[in-house]
């Protein structure tokens, strides 16, 4: 027989560096009944069917209670007196509620790491972020004409005006080799240091639509440009993000930040169709530009990890990718609707 108890939300430490160990203390644990095991799951997600076994991704640990079993005394033997005088040196009542401690360091660290993947761009302050100041969040509303030191002294408008044919300047060699395919431009992080600029450039091309399916997304400057588009009622913004590690609170912040309430904006946070992670890194702009590859939109993804990013203006490839993005987006929206329905019916019952 399995009983479930869902605790109130817990505050996580700010960053991984804030703790070396995480213990969960369970107070008032009853032990008057039979022996049982309590398994602890952290970060259970809405819309995700969690199991009860230790192989579940949210499993954090367990504790066992050696139950007292049925009372073998007479009437009142197992009743805990409500008070105890200060001179009472007897040992505690045999059924005094117990304390249990589960060390959940690995599980909490997993959540904190995930949270840090999202947190920097939900907050204007990046003080707790490991990112350098050149990766700091930009203002809102976004000034497209402001010269920016982190862009080499040019403005976003000027960056966006660079010709597709001239994007080789963001390669390590500052150009593509002779004979390179003119429609498919590939950049390799961290060797090619302009991956961040290429992503900004692509977003700056948007005139009518931006469609994104992204696993890792905590680049605050890309978020600033995306937010700029989301504020534009003429722009269709479709964003699908993997929810495997994002909490419900963050989802709500995300939807508010990117103005999900405005016409033309649709933001979905969920899992893949088969409830695995949504691991794509896809961007389609205006149906004309497509970004693919392994690069997450993060400081690490663009500057530290070994990643590849391909930008193409092949419209057929764009159309194919757009279908993938839209299908995955629809799956996530349905997951969110289902979770919302469950929550609603639960609160009614």
């Amino acid at each position, binding site marked *: 027989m399995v009983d479930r108890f869902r605790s109130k939300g817990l505050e996580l430490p700010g960053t991984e560096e804030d703790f070396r160990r995480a*213990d969960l203390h369970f*107070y*008032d*644990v009853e*032990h008057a009944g*039979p*022996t*049982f*095991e309590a398994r602890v799951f952290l970060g259970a997600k809405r819309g995700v069917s969690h199991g009860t076994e230790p192989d579940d991704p949210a499993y954090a640990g367990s*504790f*066992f*209670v*050696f*139950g*007292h*079993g*049925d009372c*073998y*005394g007479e009437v009142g*033997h197992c009743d805990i007196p409500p008070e105890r005088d200060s001179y009472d040196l007897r*040992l*505690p009542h*045999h059924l*005094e*509620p*117990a*304390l*249990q*401690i*589960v*060390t959940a360091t690995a599980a909490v660290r997993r959540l904190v790491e995930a949270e840090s993947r999202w947190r920097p761009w939900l907050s204007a302050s990046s003080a707790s972020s490991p990112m350098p100041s050149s990766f700091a969040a930009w203002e809102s509303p976004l000034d497209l004409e402001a010269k920016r030191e982190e862009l080499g002294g040019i403005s976003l408008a000027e960056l966006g005006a660079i010709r597709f044919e001239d994007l080789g300047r963001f390669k390590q060699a500052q150009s593509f080799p002779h004979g390179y395919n003119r429609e498919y431009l590939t950049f390799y992080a961290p060797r090619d240091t302009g991956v961040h600029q290429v992503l900004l450039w692509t977003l700056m091309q948007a005139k009518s639509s931006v469609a994104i399916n992204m696993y890792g997304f905590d680049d605050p400057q890309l978020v600033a440009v995306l937010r700029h588009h989301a504020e534009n009622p003429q722009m269709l913004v479709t964003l699908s993000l993997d929810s495997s590690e994002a909490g419900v609170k963050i989802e709500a912040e995300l939807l508010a930040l990117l103005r999900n309430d405005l016409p033309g904006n649709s933001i979905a946070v969920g899992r893949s169709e088969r409830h695995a992670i949504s691991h794509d890194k896809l961007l389609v702009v205006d149906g004309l530009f497509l970004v693919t590859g392994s690069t997450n939109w993060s400081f690490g993804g663009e500057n530290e990890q070994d990643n590849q990013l391909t930008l193409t203006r092949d419209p057929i490839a764009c159309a194919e990718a757009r279908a993938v993005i839209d299908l995955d987006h629809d799956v996530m929206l349905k997951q969110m609707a289902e979770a919302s329905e469950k929550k609603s019916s639960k609160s009614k019952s």
Partner: protein
Amino acid sequence: VSQTVVQTPLRHRRDARRLSDGQLAIFREAITAAQAIGDDRGYQYWAGIHGLPPPAYCQHSTPQRSAPLFLPWHRAYLYLFEKQLQDRVAGVTLPWWDWTRFHQDPIPPAYAQTRVAGKTNPLASSPIQPSGRRNKDEKRTRREPGNPNWLPNINQLNQVLANPDFFTFQTQLESIHNGVHGWVGGTMDDIAMAAYDPIFWAHHCMIDRVWYLWQLAHPGIVLSQKFLDQALPPFPLTVRQTLDITALGYDYAATTAAVPGPGHG
């Protein structure tokens, strides 16, 4: 007649799977002899201290508003029970059951075999005195072992051993202990009758040994005077008197077992 105090060497408790034939034989002899005594020197009396018949003295389930006594109380319990066995057979000691190993055959053969040399194995089961039963039909102990995968593994135990804080260590070791009681099932799963099963003593010997290993790994732990002076009823010992097992006259044999023994890191 006054007693003469005789200087005796430390006695070593051993792994239940590594007992020599002779060591196992004298242990069985001691248990059998204790079962034959009906007064406060006998097996039934000592098993009853844990739960039934009342009063139940055992200290379990870390109370959250007072000092948790699980480890000291059970150390005193095993020590005094072992003294009773030694009164029957000099030099005999309790063996431990390392449940982190041999999960393909978890209960040591010394305790699992129902018959030995044509006789009932006194370690496989025990009678339960009428006043020790929850219901009158429970005349003997029984076991209903679970899935061996549910037993604690060495990684879980090492994580608990790494605790620098005594009370956290004790709480988490008690939880592991609880799980093993549940895994053995049957009488062992009932806190009021568990001590009647002979494997109870081997299980708690392992718990006591793990505490000893923790003490070796964390020397210099400071505990409050109030805690140290706490009595452990019905035993004539305080917490302080349980801390040094060599003062109680026993030690744990070094072994190549998965849980390292003294001298084996």
